[in-house]
């Protein structure tokens, strides 16, 4: 047994009061004339034994009551005695990941978790410190009433969250509480894909509950993607499904269903479309709802516009001309002057795909044209010799024989798409893409490779068409740097908010449009991880093994978890028993005093 406020034990000196009163009662200072003192003496003599015993008993009762009150004031706690519990720092970690919304026995699993959390909160005392930690890492502290409201408001997030971070933060807050008793109470569905990474919790006890019910068979949309993300206006939607059997699906765009079908398990379905809508649009791939409705819908975003008019000038080389013809034949581009593919020496307007001049003597004219077009790059030293190009998709196996150094000017802000060695070879900026070699066979093998035409089509229809925005994909709650081309975010219900330096993905799945100066310039597509649809669970003991905790308690069922919270970690408070004992002693003393006349009469 120990005391939370041991200084109050000094009050124990008060027991000297009844003791002294008892011992000194024969030295009373008050003197009173009383002629019938002889009767008083006789009464005392006749009842002296009774009086002595009674006074001794009263003295002992009073001393015991004072001691009990003193002990209660010192707030005693003991591990095996007493009622309730001592002051405890308790962080309740509720797994509200997408998988917790699965319906089991006609009730969402998360509802059961919320009920358990509220049961625990109802057992809290004012001396406890409490936190509610959700699986996305959000920590909320407060009184039981406040946290009960938070629990009531709790909803499943659209993804897996970050269990490791949640547990780490829970451990941190209980550690920082300064209380001796620390406990992290975790209630989770134990999803295997979710608990791949676990933190080390060295100085707090972890109470774990994992349901023993088997998860239901789940169907989910694991892929929903617009290909390409800019349709001019034709494009396609790719989708893949998790199921144990064939499943029917539906694809919507801007709220309109434009495709339905049946897909085999894990089959990738590609649906081509040329919808009439224009601009940035949100789409979904959906399945019929099952026990886990949250992964039956997956979102995608697409920009749809007319095919750009492209003119290819001779200075761009013959291969470019052929590639443009292919793109025209596939209706991805049309003849026009929206975009120019041109050698730098003939550059007159933007947007343009700009290649190095075919003739080295035109290098000066090319740089002057770049300067006129306010492009912050210049052609530098001419390099000859084979060199491998490294870049993204489309640049595999590309070499250069002749190239110019691309020299950045002051204030150049551009994206490097491909490099040769450490030198930029293809760079892209607002409304331009600049290639460091002429696109001829003797300068590079790029135009003769199969990947050239798709790359060219992508550059013309995606990078150089319309706004510079793009589609960002994130899981709920993910954080990323704000893209340069956006300054705001438009929510699903149309409300817009500014973005700081860090963009945090909303916790609810959906398509959120990025805006710049109030115009949609891209989209943030928030979908849960496909792994969240895998409902296979760890058992409680398996999960316990993965948690590197100082001490782990496994609750066999939900009620046990609620009752083991506080009790397992903290010593129990002896405050109530001590007060009860004091009350009983004082009651006995009162009864003894009240019963005196009858007994002695």
């Amino acid at each position, binding site marked *: 047994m120990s005391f939370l406020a041991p200084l109050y034990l000094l009050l124990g000196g008060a027991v000297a009061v009844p003791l002294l009163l008892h011992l000194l009662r024969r030295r009373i200072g008050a003197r009173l004339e009383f*002629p019938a003192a002889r009767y008083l003496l006789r009464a005392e003599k006749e009842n002296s034994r009774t009086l002595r015993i009674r006074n001794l008993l009263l003295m002992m009762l009073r001393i015991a009551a004072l001691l009990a009150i003193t002990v209660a004031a010192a707030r005693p706690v003991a591990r095996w005695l007493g009622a309730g519990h001592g002051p405890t720092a308790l962080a309740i970690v509720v797994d509200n990941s997408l998988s917790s919304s699965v319906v089991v026995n006609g009730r969402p699993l998360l509802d059961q978790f919320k009920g358990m959390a509220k049961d625990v909160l109802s057992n809290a005392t004012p001396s406890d410190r409490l936190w509610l930690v959700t699986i996305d890492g959000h920590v909320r502290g407060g009184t039981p009433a406040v946290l009960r409201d938070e629990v009531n408001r709790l909803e499943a997030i659209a993804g897996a969250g970050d269990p490791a971070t949640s547990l780490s933060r829970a451990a941190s807050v209980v550690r920082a509480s300064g209380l001796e008793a620390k406990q992290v109470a975790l209630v989770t569905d134990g999803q295997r894909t979710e608990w791949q990474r676990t933190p080390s919790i060295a100085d707090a006890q972890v109470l774990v509950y994992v349901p023993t019910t088997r998860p239901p068979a789940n169907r989910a949309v694991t892929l929903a993607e617009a290909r390409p993300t800019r349709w001019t206006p034709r494009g396609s939607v790719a989708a893949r499904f998790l199921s144990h059997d064939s499943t029917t699906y539906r694809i919507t765009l801007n709220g309109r269903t434009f495709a339905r079908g049946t897909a085999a398990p894990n089959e990738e379905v590609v649906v081509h479309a040329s919808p009439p809508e224009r601009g940035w649009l949100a789409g979904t791939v959906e399945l019929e709802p099952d026990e886990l409705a949250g992964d039956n819908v997956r979102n995608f975003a697409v920009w749809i516009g007319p095919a750009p008019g492209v003119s290819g000038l001779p200075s761009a080389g013959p291969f470019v001309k052929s590639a443009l013809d292919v793109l025209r034949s596939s209706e991805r581009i049309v003849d026009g002057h929206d975009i120019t593919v041109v050698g730098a020496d003939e550059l007159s307007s933007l947007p343009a795909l700009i290649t190095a001049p075919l003739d080295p003597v035109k290098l000066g004219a090319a740089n002057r044209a770049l300067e006129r077009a306010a492009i912050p790059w210049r052609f530098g030293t001419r390099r000859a010799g084979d060199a491998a190009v490294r870049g993204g998709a489309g640049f595999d196996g590309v070499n250069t024989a002749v190239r110019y150094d691309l020299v950045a000017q002051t204030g150049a802000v551009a994206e490097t798409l491909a490099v040769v060695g450490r030198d930029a070879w293809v760079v892209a900026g607002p409304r331009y893409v600049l290639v460091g070699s002429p696109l001829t066979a003797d300068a590079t093998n790029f135009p003769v490779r199969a990947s050239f035409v798709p790359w060219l089509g992508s550059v013309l229809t995606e990078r150089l068409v319309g706004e510079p925005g793009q589609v960002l994909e994130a899981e709920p709650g993910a954080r990323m740097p704000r893209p340069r081309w956006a300054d705001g975010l438009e929510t699903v219900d149309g409300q817009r908010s500014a973005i700081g330096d860090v963009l945090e993905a909303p916790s609810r799945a959906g398509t959120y449009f990025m805006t710049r100066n109030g115009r949609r310039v891209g989209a943030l597509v928030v979908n849960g991880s496909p792994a969240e649809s895998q409902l296979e669970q760890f058992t409680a003991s398996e999960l316990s093994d993965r948690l590197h905790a100082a001490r782990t308690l496994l609750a066999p069922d939900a009620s046990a978890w609620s009752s083991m919270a506080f009790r397992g970690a903290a010593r129990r408070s002896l405050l109530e028993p001590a007060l009860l004992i004091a009350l009983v002693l004082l009651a006995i003393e009162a009864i003894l*005093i009240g019963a005196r*006349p009858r007994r002695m009469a």
Partner: protein
Amino acid sequence: MQGLPGKAAITFLAPMESTRAMRADLFDPASLAALGRIEIVSRWIVDGFMSGLHRSPRKGFSVEFAEYRPYQPGDDLRYIDWKIAARSDRWVVRQYEEETNLRASIVLDVSRSMAWSGAQMSAGGPARTRETTAVTQLTKLEYAERLTAALALLLLRQRDAVGLVRFDERVRTAVPPRARNGQWRRIVASLEEPGAGRASSAADALHQSARLISRRGLIVLVSDLLMEIGEVETAMRGLRALGHDVTVLHIMDPAERELPGAGEAVFIDPESELSVPASIADVRAAYKKTVDEVIGEWRSMFGALGIGYEIVSTDAPFGVPLRQAFAARQMLP
């Protein structure tokens, strides 16, 4: 009673009929005593007492006509003089004087224990409670003196010879019984002589009173009986052997019976200086039990000797003990 000063300030003990309420013998003794000297107060008491005797069974006594007085509601109609009523249309009643040869002696304890009232407990006690008596309460001696004076006057008005013996550790005053005029004044004057000795020697006083009464008579002992019961018993046996009728009025303060208050104190007997430390609340029940036992012992002893014994509480109207003492007188020839 018509000239009773300060009448409006008197506290009546209980709601009574108007006639009865005017009787001084039924007044609160402390309030009544505050209105005048002993002789005045005693006259009021006896007057009141006598006016209330209309229901007393006095038939059979040899009485002699004394005077007329105006009829008062409640007077026995047998005593109305119908002839006067017929002649003058005035209603008067005949009053008679009794003839007697009774010799009575009142033995009054004036020891120090008598000069005490429960008001001292509430004034100087360890704790004041609602049970404590009023501060204006008479001491036992003050009460006994007024009672003695009233009793003497009452007996004298019956033509009895009345004497007084005052005693503490010794006999302080001895007034032989007489029935003549001025006897009552002598008794009243004797009451003002000093006393308050440190002991009570009732035996000597009783013997002295017996000597003062030459033949069988009535002896009334007025005392708080804080004395040895054996000595009193011996003296009483002697008196009874001489054929005297004896009545004992045991004067007790309410505080002596109830031991009111709370807290703790050292209780000191002013006569013997016996000191007893006690917690009042703790010992009250036992004390009351002891007092009842002592009273029982006195009653038993007096009863065995054929002696009348009455407990007189100092907060009781004077009429109460007076009636008790007078009843004892009425039993005598």
